[in-house]
């Protein structure tokens, strides 16, 4: 299981930067090995350069997306210039006036927020049950839960489609939401996190007369914040970026989500790449904001799940 040092190393980058992680790629701490110091420094600078070039290459497609989105008429004949002659936000305007992108963003946001909140609830309760409430057949039930990870939603598209049709839920938000309410991943992540909360805390609370519900709410949840933050990012991301199910279940244009609307833009505006790229930029921003907010928890959250 993850030990505390690992979590510390990630959350407090600045303070531990030259302590533990350094040696893992073999850069000796300078105190102990001064002979090869110069060579190491050169190598270290080189590493910076390589990583920065790599990052630029990584970032280039995004940069290109942004440039294209502000180059009017991009893609009609040739690729846009790196510095467009007459940058304009016309494509963004077109998105929100000629196309229902305002509505589309609200739809995506609504679905993502509901999915995230419900997943937090179902994952935390199940995680608590598997960690703190032993019952007969628990191992089997947990194994079945885990097995559902191997069943992708894509594989279930036909029966899910007919099931929701029978409920009259096709073309409704609820129909798009229901299959996303519980995921084995979330349950597993939170169970692992809860396992690491010291049981002494529960026992102390029990002595004070607290029941399971109170322990869950006042002891467990506050102690698994990094895992909750990680789940928020992944649940939100899963919903925000999901494509196939919303494509199939949300049929009316006014219910469409961002990825589906974006895919639709391509077919209709085969030559208007500025509009398509503006839509892409718009779709990344909310995820980016969420990532920046939760960034420091992610590695810690993954680490605490015992995947190492």
């Amino acid at each position, binding site marked *: 299981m993850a030990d505390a040092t690992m979590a510390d190393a990630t959350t407090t980058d600045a303070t531990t930067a*030259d302590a533990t992680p350094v040696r893992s790629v073999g850069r000796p701490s300078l105190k102990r090995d001064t002979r090869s110091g110069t060579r190491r420094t050169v190598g270290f600078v080189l590493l910076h350069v390589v990583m920065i070039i*790599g990052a630029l290459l990584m970032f280039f497609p995004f940069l290109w997306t942004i440039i*294209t989105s502000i180059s009017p008429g991009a893609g009609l004949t040739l690729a846009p210039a790196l510095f467009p002659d007459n940058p304009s936000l016309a494509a963004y305007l077109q998105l929100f006036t000629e196309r229902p992108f305002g509505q589309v963003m609200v739809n995506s946001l609504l679905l993502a927020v509901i999915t995230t909140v419900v997943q937090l609830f179902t994952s935390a309760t199940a995680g608590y049950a598997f960690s703190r409430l032993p019952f007969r057949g628990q191992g089997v039930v947990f194994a079945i839960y885990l097995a559902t990870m191997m069943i992708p939603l894509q*594989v279930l598209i036909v029966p899910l489609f007919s099931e929701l049709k029978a409920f009259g839920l096709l073309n409704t938000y609820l129909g798009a939401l229901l299959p996303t309410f519980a995921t084995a991943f979330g349950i597993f992540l939170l169970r692992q996190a809860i396992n690491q909360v010291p049981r002494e805390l529960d026992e102390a609370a029990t002595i004070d007369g607290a029941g399971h519900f109170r322990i869950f709410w006042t002891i467990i949840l506050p102690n698994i914040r990094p895992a909750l933050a990680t789940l928020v990012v992944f649940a939100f991301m899963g919903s925000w970026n999901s494509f196939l199910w919303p494509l199939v279940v949300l049929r009316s244009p006014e219910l469409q989500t961002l*990825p589906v609307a974006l895919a639709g833009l391509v077919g209709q505006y085969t030559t208007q790449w500025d509009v398509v790229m503006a839509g892409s930029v718009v779709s990344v921003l909310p995820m980016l904001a969420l990532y920046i907010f939760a*960034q420091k928890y*992610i590695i810690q959250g993954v680490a605490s799940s015992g995947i190492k």
Partner: protein
Amino acid sequence: MTTIPAVLPAVDEVVQPNAPRPSARRGRSRRARVTYALTVLAFILPSAIPLAMFTLGPMVAAAWVSLHEWNLLAPMTWVGLDNYRSLLADPRTGDVFLHTIYYIAGYLPLVYIGGLTLALALNTALKGRSLLRGVYFLPVITSWIVVALVWRWLLNPSNGIVNTVLEAFGIAGPGWWSDPAWAMPSIILASAWKDIGFVMVILLAGLQAINQDLYDAAKVDGAGWWRRLVSVTLPLLSPSTFFVVVISLINGFQVFDQVYAMTGGGPGGASQVVVQQIYDLTFRYGKAGEASALSWLLFAVVLFVTVIQIRGQKRWVNYG
């Protein structure tokens, strides 16, 4: 789709759970036991109901549908195992599995070696590594549709930036996604770019769990950088590696969004993968029965591959 289900390290725990056995509860009063049972239900049902209704139920229903001919419009008719027979007779079934395996074979080494390199580099006292991590992670949080759009644009055969740059060096760039031979490599390239940051995070978490004393000991023995990587880092990183491999395989067999948005399975079916075929069979050709049969075939393959890996893990995965 959530992409980091962490099934496998947990499988061992299913077999040897660390929680006390239920028998420990014997001897409580009847009323206390009822209260306890109700508490368990209250905690388990919020997740059990959706999983049963929207995953396990449909799974069973798919098996039932796979024994029928059904175009989703008219009522279904029983055809027994005909759908499985026609799937096995259709050369496309083999093709879509081959294309899917081709995808995995290209994608997995690329994303693992890339992710490992990044993780090793970012596990040092690099300046600004939070920012660097953020940049490398950026594609992970981006929708596949956006990534596919951007890469289609970058790899446009006639005026895309990649071929324009290649041309400047006197190289005639390939037709990328418009060429049957290059369609899958284009998808692999875009996929590796997108997922490399995710692999990096998993491996970083693994690297940071490695006990530093082992490195010190190795150094005392005079082991160089490469030697330490091969005999300390990689063996101790094997659980993370195992996780990445298993998850990449499960997700790899389910590859769809990028194919749909980048090539639509074309040109001429050259990049058609299993899930896209399930989708086409259902909604393009009106063959929901055959699609369900293919779903089960896919599930069987994924299960088989995963079980093989769990069995094989003892040979190379070091849980220390």
